[in-house]
């Protein structure tokens, strides 16, 4: 079971922080629904995780995406900023995070989860509430956009 804790332990470890995060981002009222949405998304993806590392950053990314999705449902046209991913010891991510700041939220999350956390597209798709193909497209669109930005600098 390559270090993946039983979901109960994962849920207990991160519930307080996820709820606090959601309250900051979406307000007290919406946070309640998003709390359930976040952990249901995590549960859906959990069986396909290949390792148990960076689960905190992983679930906070899912929470951030749930916030973005909910806001989009409410006012679809608005431009939304999302700075999902949280600090983590992994150096690749630290380097990646500032680079991806300007990407649209979905692309940013896909790039960070793929290249910062080394998750497979199946898992990323589930975490983003979409599917493997959409996750793959979002990540590659994100990478293309980053390249372009780099060239323009």
């Amino acid at each position, binding site marked *: 079971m390559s270090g*993946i804790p039983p*979901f*109960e332990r994962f*849920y207990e470890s991160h519930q307080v922080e996820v709820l*606090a995060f959601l309250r900051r981002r979406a307000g007290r009222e919406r946070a309640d629904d998003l709390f*359930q949405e976040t952990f*249901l998304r995590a549960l859906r993806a959990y*069986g396909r995780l290949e390792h148990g590392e960076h689960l905190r950053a992983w679930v906070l990314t899912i929470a951030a995406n749930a916030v973005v999705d909910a806001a989009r449902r409410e006012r679809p046209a608005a431009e939304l900023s999302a700075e999902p991913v949280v600090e983590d010891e992994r150096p690749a991510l630290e380097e990646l995070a500032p680079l991806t700041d300007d990407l649209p939220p979905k692309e940013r999350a896909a790039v960070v989860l793929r290249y910062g956390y080394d998750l497979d597209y199946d898992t990323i798709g589930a975490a983003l509430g979409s599917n493997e193909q959409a996750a793959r497209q979002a990540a590659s669109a994100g990478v293309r956009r980053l390249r372009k930005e780099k060239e323009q600098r």
Partner: protein
Amino acid sequence: MTAVPAVLDERFRAAAAASGELDVAYDLLEDTPVGRLLVGVSERGICRVGFDPEPEAELERLARHFGPRVLRSPRALDRARTELDEYFAGRRQAFELELDLRATPEFHRRVLVELNRVEYGHTTTYGALAAQVGAPRAARAVGTVMNRNPLPIVLPCHRVVGANGSLTGYGGGLDRKEWLLRLEGALL
């Protein structure tokens, strides 16, 4: 940071069970006549009854056998809890729960299926059970199967006694075996 409100926590646990995405939903039954029990159910049926559970070890075990999506979800246990309550109150003689014996090795399963035919209030012996699965000399192995029974009480290993009528042993301790047999009227 403050704790997650109980209502929110319970709502998620119920929604998780209802989503069909859990490998195992479990709960702790705190005050049964035989003490604290951990009961687990999968989509296929009841998969675990544990005496004096050490949650850490039990969760690891469930995750290893059935998958990592293991969550405490009292709502999902309603049926199992009702049947066990009825049994402890002497109002139920046979369980109707589906059984999930996926994680049990083949020989063990054969013995447990045979064990399940031993009726309420009756006893059998390790040797007799061994003979019934076509391994008449495997009484000792049958003892091991009883000891590792993942579903004690539901699969009635307490109804298996030594050839001389002694209680012999029980995974949950002899006191419990005696209590269960008395409940069923198999001991005076």
